[in-house]
């Protein structure tokens, strides 16, 4: 029941079942590889088998003559000089010399780099023929260690050297802070190379319409409008002749849906051959072709006063970006240093990062880019500092966390082109709440019990700051059809996060309809040509606010028409459950369907000059991000014999502003934590000394199973609504993984009783055994 307002509030805040579920549970989802077109051809990439070398020649005759082969394409067949531009330009970095070509023309720089593509009538024939392509490569030394690659004597991967960017962010008098410190603590922390690895490999179908020249694309997700526009530019087409369709996607996590070489090749082939072309990568390709992430070395130090308060913080980061700068440019290293001070009061800060190119798969974002890495380094530093200062790990955090009355806090830095302004919140209160929840759930008792039983058991704690709701804008259309069905056309994309359900709840709430009435289409470039895509934990915040505005506009328009139909004042009308009624006279009512029909052309309720239809398009703009925050706590056992780490308990406490669907927020946090456990303990892209990938199957790239992931406890708080959007929401996509490396490093360090840092993630059995034997680094 609503009182005194015409907007029911039931739809937001309910853990309603997902709209996505029925089709996915029945096997009726439509993923990129599920589509098929008559006369469809299949593409297969030929990739470099060596890490670095000069491409002397590519022999394609045998492949071209093979059964069923339609064409074999090399760089020589393509327009010259094709390279994939950076999507996110920041810090005025000029990366033109380091961009990845669509197909390598004269130099190969990592194993897996595309050098040719074979097109055949079926995928088996294409794969057979790809093996007949003869590559003559003059091998050169591989460059695998980023710190060495940055030095003057390293073999050069590019004429300009191996350092693509070297920049420093910060503010305040760092040298002065360190000069007057009572204690300086410095550690080195290394983060292992790992990545998103969604369960569905990439797939792309391009289908040309010979009559109109239109190109239909299936399988581009994340930023479909950006990719459509880029593809149109590269192909020299009008962008409205490209239609990127909405499809299901088997997980994204940052890596899927960026513009890769294949995203040019497949549409180009379809257009050139005038035939539908399908490409589906296999897992072996995926693990060497799709963006890697995370690999960094931090030399981090903090200056403290006698009471353990931070006076200054500095970090020197070497970021291993692999062989090229791809669409993300340098945003991962930028986010690393921009977000490094986290939720703490840091009066002076300097973060330097060198972005180094090596003979490995190029890098991009992976869920919580820069925060997973930076939080690990910073929180490990605080643990070591607490030990040296002889205060508890909680105490050092609560003394340094920014208090509620210190927010908003502007840091004189920018990231993703926006100023860093920590908007609102109560960080110490959430730390206390997380501790209380862990106590209630028996974490400390479990640690004690284990230790009494002689186990190497440890408790980890880590606080973190997230960011979400990146602008600059999102656009949404809301249309009510003649049946009363409400259609939302949003610029987000469905990657498994449940955004269809969330946007339906927001639309229903603003419109006064039931979520069941609402259907949501995400990421169709014809339906929503101004979408910004789903990434950076932005969709609930930015797309949600756009949907809120559009649905609110439709509600107002519906009330205007209903007032004419009911001969009532629009101000006296109540909109709920898809009905608009006169307040105090529920019998005087019309349904949304009736209102929609009353807006048809020639309707007596339409005034001259008014457009027909019940719909609205609205744009939501935002200048600053909103910064969620949280705390992770974990209990682990270390097996002194094998070095294996078992995660026994895991709690994520997270301030989300307002949870549109709390079960989906919990799902994001749990899934993120599971990925974080993988990155902290198991997953790593390893290379041998020649640059050959050693993690090219799921036997060697070890993602966590149900045996490695314990039940994840979550504490979702809604105490600090975001001030910058009408819903008060903060993004929830990345808080589950942000501090996973930090908390597990903290827990293992505690279990082993180390004085110094754990030094390096992932904490594989071999690494943990070494720590147990030799102790931690300084």
């Amino acid at each position, binding site marked *: 029941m609503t009182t005194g307002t015409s907007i029911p509030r039931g739809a937001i805040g309910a853990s309603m079942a997902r709209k996505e579920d029925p089709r*996915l*549970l029945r096997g009726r989802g439509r993923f990129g590889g599920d589509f098929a077109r008559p006369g469809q051809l299949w593409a297969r990439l030929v990739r470099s088998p060596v890490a670095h070398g000069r491409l002397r020649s590519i022999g394609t005759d045998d492949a071209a003559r093979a059964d069923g082969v339609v064409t074999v394409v090399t760089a020589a067949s393509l327009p010259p000089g094709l390279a994939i531009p950076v999507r996110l330009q920041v810090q005025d970095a000029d990366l033109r010399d380091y961009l990845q070509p669509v197909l390598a023309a004269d130099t190969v720089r990592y194993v897996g780099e595309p050098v040719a593509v074979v097109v055949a009538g079926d995928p*088996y024939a294409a794969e057979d023929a790809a093996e007949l392509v003869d590559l003559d490569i003059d091998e050169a030394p591989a460059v695998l260690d980023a710190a060495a690659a940055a030095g003057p004597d390293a073999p050069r991967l590019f004429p300009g050297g191996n350092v693509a960017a070297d920049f420093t962010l910060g503010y305040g008098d760092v040298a002065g802070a360190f000069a007057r410190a009572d204690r300086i603590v410095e550690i080195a922390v290394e983060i292992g190379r790992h990545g998103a690895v969604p*369960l569905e490999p990439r797939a792309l179908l391009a289908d040309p319409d010979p009559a109109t020249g239109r190109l239909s694309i299936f399988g581009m997700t994340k930023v479909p409008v950006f990719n459509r526009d880029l593809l149109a530019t590269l192909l020299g087409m009008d962008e409205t002749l490209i239609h990127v369709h909405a499809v299901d996607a088997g*997980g994204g996590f940052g890596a899927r849906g960026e513009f890769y070489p294949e995203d040019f090749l497949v549409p180009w082939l379809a257009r050139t051959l005038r035939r539908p072309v399908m490409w589906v990568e296999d897992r072996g390709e995926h693990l060497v072709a799709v963006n890697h992430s995370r690999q960094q070395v931090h030399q981090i130090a903090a200056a403290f006063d006698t009471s353990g308060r931070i006076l200054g913080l500095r970090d020197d980061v070497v970021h291993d970006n692999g062989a090229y700068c791809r669409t993300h440019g340098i945003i991962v290293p930028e986010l690393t240093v921009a977000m490094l001070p986290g939720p703490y009061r840091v009066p002076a800060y300097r973060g330097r990062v060198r972005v180094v190119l090596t003979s490995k798969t190029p890098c991009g974002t992976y869920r919580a880019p820069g925060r997973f890495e930076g939080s690990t380094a910073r929180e490990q530093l605080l643990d070591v500092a607490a030990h040296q200062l002889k205060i508890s790990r909680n105490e050092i955090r609560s003394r340094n966390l920014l208090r509620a009355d210190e927010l908003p806090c502007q840091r004189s830095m920018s990231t993703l082109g926006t100023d860093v302004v920590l908007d609102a919140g109560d960080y110490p209160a959430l730390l206390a709440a997380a501790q209380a929840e862990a106590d209630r759930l028996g974490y400390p008792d479990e640690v004690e019990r284990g230790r009494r039983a002689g186990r190497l058991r440890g408790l980890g704690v880590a606080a973190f700051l997230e960011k979400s709701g990146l602008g600059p804008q999102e656009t949404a259309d809301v249309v009510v059809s003649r049946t009363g069905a409400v259609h939302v056309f949003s610029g987000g994309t469905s990657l498994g996060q449940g955004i269809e359900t969330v946007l339906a709840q927001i639309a229903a709430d603003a419109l006064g309809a039931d979520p069941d009435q609402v259907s949501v289409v995400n990421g169709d470039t014809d339906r929503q040509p101004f979408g910004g895509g789903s990434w950076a934990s932005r969709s609930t915040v930015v797309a949600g606010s756009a949907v809120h505005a559009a649905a609110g506009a439709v509600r107002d328009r519906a009330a205007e028409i209903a007032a004419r139909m009911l001969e009532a004042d629009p101000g006296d009308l109540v909109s709920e459950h898809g009905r608009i009624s006169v307040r105090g006279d529920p019998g005087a009512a019309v349904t949304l369907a009736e209102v929609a029909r009353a807006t048809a052309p020639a309707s007596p309720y339409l005034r001259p000059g008014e457009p027909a239809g019940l719909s609205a398009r609205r744009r939501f703009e935002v200048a600053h991000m909103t910064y969620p925050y949280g705390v992770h706590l974990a209990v682990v056992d270390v097996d002194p014999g094998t070095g294996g780490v078992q995660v026994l308990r895991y709690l994520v406490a997270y301030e989300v502003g307002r949870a549109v669907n709390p079960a989906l927020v919990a799902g994001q946090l*749990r899934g993120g934590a599971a*990925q974080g456990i993988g990155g902290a303990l198991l997953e790593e892209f390893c290379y041998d000394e020649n640059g050959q990938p050693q993690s090219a199957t*799921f036997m060697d790239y070890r993602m966590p*199973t*149900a045996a490695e992931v314990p039940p994840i406890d979550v504490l979702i708080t809604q105490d600090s609504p975001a001030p910058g959007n009408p819903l008060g929401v903060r993004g929830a996509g990345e808080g589950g993984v942000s501090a996973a490396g930090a908390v597990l490093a903290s827990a293992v360090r505690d279990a082993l009783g180390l004085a110094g840092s754990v030094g390096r993630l992932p904490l594989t059995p071999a690494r943990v055994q070494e720590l147990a034997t030799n102790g931690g680094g300084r």
Partner: protein
Amino acid sequence: MKDTHLIRVRVNGREHELAVESRRTLADMLRHDLGYTGTHLGCEHGICGACTVLVDGAPARACLMFGVQADGQDVATVEGLADGEDLSDLQQAFSDRHGLQCGFCTPGFLMLAEGYLAELQAGRGDGGEPSEQQIREVVAANLCRCTGYQGIVEAVLETARRRQAMEMP
């Protein structure tokens, strides 16, 4: 020269007769020749389990079997689980417990679980109510990158208990 065989296979109770190349995997045959695209391919080397189907009632990785090996056999895929418009009890439990996000691994987990639940029902387990630990071990056969497994474990556990309770005299 293609080595093609004429085979008969029953999928979700429906007979199919088709000519299939000897090297064509069961997964590709189901997806591309017969249109059962609910069976997904996540790794094509038998680790992730997204392609799990039931062959004569037992879970099998459809990426590790050739189509010709299914000649004369009964194959069950995710498309056969729901009864008309109604989701099966297991599918409903997956939705209720938020055991899926992107849904790519989901068909494989559903078929893996159906195979396990059938085994329980046939009394090949230890007879008692399955524990969460036992379910976790079963669920650990497949990979999910989204959920952290908790909803999947809960859904299978809930369905196992409900089906056992229904069998009680």
